[in-house]
């Protein structure tokens, strides 16, 4: 058999994590470099996936690997990628090196710590572990396999949130520690509850398949084929129940209003890189899973639930944005902004149009990059001042112009300014939604005004105006930090101008999903038979 | 008479023994009640072996006795030790299970 690329992509960071954790206590620097190297190797592997992935190939999944695992329950070790997952794997592998680099000093021991202090190694090992789990969750085409890693992710995340916070500023170390643990526990509980409900649904799925196919299976492809062949046929209520079970878990992870309250705490208390890890990498699994599992396993139920979900996502969009405006804490503000963006993603997924879904997937990528840029710069800012309160800053632009500039660009990306990547995806989502649900589309558009509001308010209060006393001596971005931010910004610009490489990977997968839910784009009211579109095709 | 009565008797004895375990506080007495329960089981086994016309039931009863012997030895040793340390054989005093 050929080289198991998918397994390797997940295994490398996993082993790397173990190796990093094993580095002796006093050789911290070595651990950091090791982690960085591992993440880069993973990036190379992910890139190889992207290269070897053939958009036009037949069949839903490529680079598949399949081994029997728990024969008794028909659980298989099935891996495979479609356009969507391969792109998201690419995103994950891309972001981790930056996260590692950005978190270079976040886990350094304080003067008070002994030289035996190990958490530095732990920090990087945990990050790599999360990467491994996320990657395999993206690759798994076996529901049970996916579920396991979907849940297992929580463990390293729990320790990352609860164990490592910003260097305490005004609030004493003890106080921030309690805050951290509260956030971590909240994160864990929310996601565990979601996960358990999903587990019930997973078992239910197995029961149904076992009942109707004779031998129960968790394999996505098998189930989909069986449904297509008419061998498998859910009762309406059963399908809806199972769908809700799955969707709940993903909605918690995504997070969708009103299951969102864990995110601000988690992102607020965790260090900036970990916050990026949460919102840009881990949460993507939720929205991705909606697209892959909810829609493909339960098309009818998805359509049934669409109206409610659309309303919820609209609420998320506006609610998140409004709360972002009301925040006093930079990181919490970004967190609420993310909630609003996740609203857009879910909206696009359930708009059931090509534009909506590829927009949503593209949105996952772009939101990952833009939030990473904004959040990491914010992290650098906070690390300089030791406070997360917006009110503690002002006039930074005067003393640290580069920092301010990058921060502004990150912010502009967040408010999806045309020319930067998020605009494309956001507009696609809006168009996709609008073409099927005009009202929803129009309401969602209000979100872009609110986005402008919270971003600009944040920028104005922190960066402009007279220089606040505490920031007078603030240094500008250092080389390492610039090395983190610059590539991200370059990527934002590139994908904003030329997103085609990504979209052409996505399109077939999205088309496949659409065919799964038996949906097709609504036709325009006026049939345009113009030369323009044709010569565009000629040009392509 | 039908030998099944032996079984009823066994059940009765077992229940009595169990009740004893529950209501007595003296560890030794509790132990005796346990023995009583074991014996009740043995009676049942023996009766069963008669019922099925083979000796396996008796063998089991035999093993039960052996195990009971071992158990008693260890158990009494424990009681003695506890008594030494806290001058009481009441199980309620050994409240180490308390939170």
């Amino acid at each position, binding site marked *: 058999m050929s080289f198991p690329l998918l397994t390797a992509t997940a295994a490398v960071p996993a082993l790397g994590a173990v190796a990093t954790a094993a580095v002796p206590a006093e050789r911290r620097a070595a651990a950091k470099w090791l982690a960085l190297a591992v993440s880069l190797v993973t990036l190379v592997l992910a890139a190889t996936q992207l290269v070897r992935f053939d958009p036009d190939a037949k069949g839903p999944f490529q680079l598949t690997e399949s081994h029997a695992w728990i024969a008794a329950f028909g659980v298989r070790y099935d891996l495979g990628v479609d356009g969507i997952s391969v792109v998201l794997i690419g995103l994950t592998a891309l972001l981790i090196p930056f996260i590692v680099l950005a978190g270079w000093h976040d886990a350094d021991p304080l003067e008070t710590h002994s030289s035996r202090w190990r958490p530095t190694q732990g920090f990087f090992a945990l990050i790599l572990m999360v990467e491994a789990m996320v990657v395999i969750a993206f690759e798994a085409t076996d529901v049970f396999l996916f579920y396991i890693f979907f849940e297992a992710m929580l463990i390293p995340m729990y320790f990352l949130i609860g164990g490592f916070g910003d260097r305490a500023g005004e609030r004493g170390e003890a106080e921030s520690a309690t805050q951290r643990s509260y956030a971590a526990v909240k994160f864990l509980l*929310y996601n565990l509850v979601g996960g358990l409900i999903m587990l019930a649904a997973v078992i239910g799925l197995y029961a149904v398949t076992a009942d109707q196919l004779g031998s129960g299976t968790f394999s996505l492809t098998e189930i989909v084929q069986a449904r297509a062949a008419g061998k498998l046929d859910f009762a309406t209520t059963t399908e809806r129940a199972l769908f809700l079970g799955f969707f709940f878990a993903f909605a918690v992870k995504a997070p969708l209003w009103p299951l969102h309250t864990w995110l601000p705490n988690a992102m607020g208390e965790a260090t900036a890189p970990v916050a990026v890890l949460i919102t840009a990498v881990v949460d993507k699994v939720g929205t991705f899973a909606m697209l892959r599992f909810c829609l493909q396993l339960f098309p009818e139920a998805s359509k049934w639930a669409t109206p409610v979900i659309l309303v919820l996502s609209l609420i998320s969009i506006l609610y998140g944005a409004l*709360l972002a405006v009301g925040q006093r804490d930079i990181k919490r503000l970004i967190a609420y902004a993310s909630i609003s963006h996740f609203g857009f993603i879910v909206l696009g997924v359930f708009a059931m149009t*090509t534009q909506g879904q590829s927009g949503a997937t593209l949105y996952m990528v772009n939101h990952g990059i833009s939030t990473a840029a904004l959040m990491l710069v914010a992290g650098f800012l906070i690390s300089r001042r030791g406070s997360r309160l917006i009110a503690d800053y002002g*006039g930074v632009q005067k003393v640290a112009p580069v920092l301010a500039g990058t921060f502004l660009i990150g912010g502009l990306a967040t408010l999806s300014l*045309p020319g930067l990547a998020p605009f494309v995806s956001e507009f696609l989502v809006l168009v996709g939604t*609008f073409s099927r649900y005009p009202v929803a589309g129009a309401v969602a558009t209000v979100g872009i005004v609110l986005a402008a509001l919270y971003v*600009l308010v944040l920028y104005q209060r922190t960066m*402009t*105006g007279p220089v606040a006393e505490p920031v007078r001596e603030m240094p500008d971005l250092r080389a390492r930090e610039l090395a983190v931010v610059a590539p991200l910004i370059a990527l934002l610009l590139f994908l904003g101008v030329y997103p085609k490489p990504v979209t052409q990977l996505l399109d077939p997968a999205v088309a496949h999903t659409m065919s799964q839910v038996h949906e097709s784009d609504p036709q325009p009211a006026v049939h345009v038979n113009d030369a323009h579109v044709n010569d565009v095709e000629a040009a392509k | 008479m039908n030998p099944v009565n032996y079984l009823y008797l066994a059940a009765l004895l077992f229940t009595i023994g169990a009740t004893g*375990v529950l209501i007595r506080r003296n560890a030794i007495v509790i132990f005796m009640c346990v023995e009583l329960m074991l014996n009740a089981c043995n009676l049942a086994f023996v009766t069963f072996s008669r019922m099925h016309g083979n000796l396996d039931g008796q063998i089991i009863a035999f093993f039960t006795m052996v195990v009971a012997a071992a158990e008693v030895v260890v158990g009494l040793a424990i009681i003695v030790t506890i008594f030494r340390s806290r001058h009481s054989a009441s199980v309620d005093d050994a409240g180490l299970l308390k939170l």
Partner: protein
Amino acid sequence: MENLIGTLVLVPLLGAGVLLCGGRRLDRAGHWIGTFAAALSFVIGVVLFADMLGRSGEDRELAATVFSWVPVGGFRADVGFQLDQLSMTFVLLITGVGSLIHLYSVGYMAHDERRRRFFGYLNLFLAAMLLLVLADNYLLLYVGWEGVGLASYLLIGFWQHKPSAATAAKKAFLVNRVGDMGLSIAIMLMFTTFGTFAFGPVLENADKAGEGRLTAIGLLLLLAACGKSAQVPLQSWLGDAMEGPTPVSALIHAATMVTAGVYLITRSGAIFDGAPDAQTAVVTVGAVTLLFGAIVGCAKDDIKKALAGSTMSQIGYMVLAAGLGPIGYPFAIMHLVTHGFFKAGLFLGAGSVMHAMNDEVDMRRYGGLRRYMPITFVTFGLGYLAIIGFPGLSGFFSKDKIIEAAFAKGGTEGWILGGAALLGAAITAYYMTRVMLLTFFGEKRWQPAPSPEEPGAEPAAETRGEGRMPHPHESPKVMTIPMIVLAAGSVLAGGLFSLNDAFLTWLEPVTGHEEGHSPVTAVQVTTATLVVLFVGVALAWAQYGRRPVPVTAPPGSLPVRIARRDLLQDDINHIVLVRGGEHLTRSLVYVDHTLVDGVVNGTAAAVGGLSGRMRRLQNGFARSYAVSMFGGAAVLIAATLLMRAV
């Protein structure tokens, strides 16, 4: 030639990139790089113009699809350019005026240590604006649309250390965003209606779509135009935008960006023609704004704010014209161009005055400057004559045509619009004369230089002396030359354009043109215009020319005070939007914290309490555990028996 179109946008974009990423080592040469980029694009524009003139009227349009931008399913957005007469006009205006203002800024910003970045932003603006007018589909236009918004945000807030500037910038961007929302929804609607949003197919097939959809699209486009062109009700940002450096006000908030709305409406003419209601809305907005702006202009003592008000009202004229349909399009554009010249000239003049007066902006503290700065006086004066529509100067031709067209709309509507336009002309004459008199005539009313924290004071003041009496001096060549050129433009442009309707024939292939049958003859209109013009001037003279002007503004009657407060626009916004918004967000934050979160924490607490009670069962007595064991055994037996039974 097609490839040149791309470079037209690319050159300033590269300039911006170089300047912004270049770092401090470019500080010395930065401004020249920027100016060069602008000039280069102007040259390219001229080349293309020459090439275009070389071809006959119909096949003058050039199209170039550079690459496919966002291809998703049926959704195709391309980066493609389309250069027709309309775009060409804008290209020349933008690059021409742009280059001049770059040149001017070299002098004006000479003392600012962040001059390099300033020029970077200016180039960025040029690129975005060119993209806006060259795009061949609405989505790309939207990119340029927001691009200019960004540039204007950056430039208004260029002196970010001034909270007022930062706030003004934010306000401008937000208000524009509201308009952009309209534009994006319009694009979506186009997509659902036509399956594409490229100009060609959409406009050709506009008539196929029902009037309802067209009206919707039209109104949304109008919203966008209102945002960008500071039309009522989204006008409030323009006044504050004057916080930016004066060249910015000249280029962005007078000559080019604010006219983008007019471009949008003219470009989408086909849609509006199919939607009379939308057109009515457009003309209404135009008429209201032209009066609104004019009134505000009368009340302001801040020279730039006064000019801003006038800009508003002039754009009102254009929108009004554009709303009239094919009758008005050419004149809208024509007025746009002439206005570009004279208003830019006026702003540069104002800048030059401020430059000379230690950045004093209060006209009541000027006076008698004509002797000290003759060139500024002359150029400004020419601009003044042009804007009030003095016969023979450009404003006269363009505005006159618009008023005619307004009457030509016919019916009561025509009378109302025409009347409004005439009234506007009168007020224009009044407030411009006021500005002129206060600034250049009368006796000196100079004051020591203002302290920097006074709004409108620019940081250059810090670099120059504090509290000294200003000693007005003529600005350096690099600043006066652009003023002279623009003055020349504002004098001649109108005449050239109307020479046997050159402009009309030039634009006709794009916008189309039809002669409206006006109830009044052109001659009557002209005479009426001249009459109201002189009335306005006379009033102003009577009020400010003859008797001395108090240095501190008199309290004034209620209407005056209202007008000073921009007709309460901000107060209304504040009460309705800001306050409401704040309350909304605050209450939502509360809700999120107590309700949504509270439910969860409540459940957690309940579970905790329950387990606390359950804990009591664990009394630590082996015997009570034994009881439960025994009970369990009993239950098991019961269960087995039951299973056997059934």
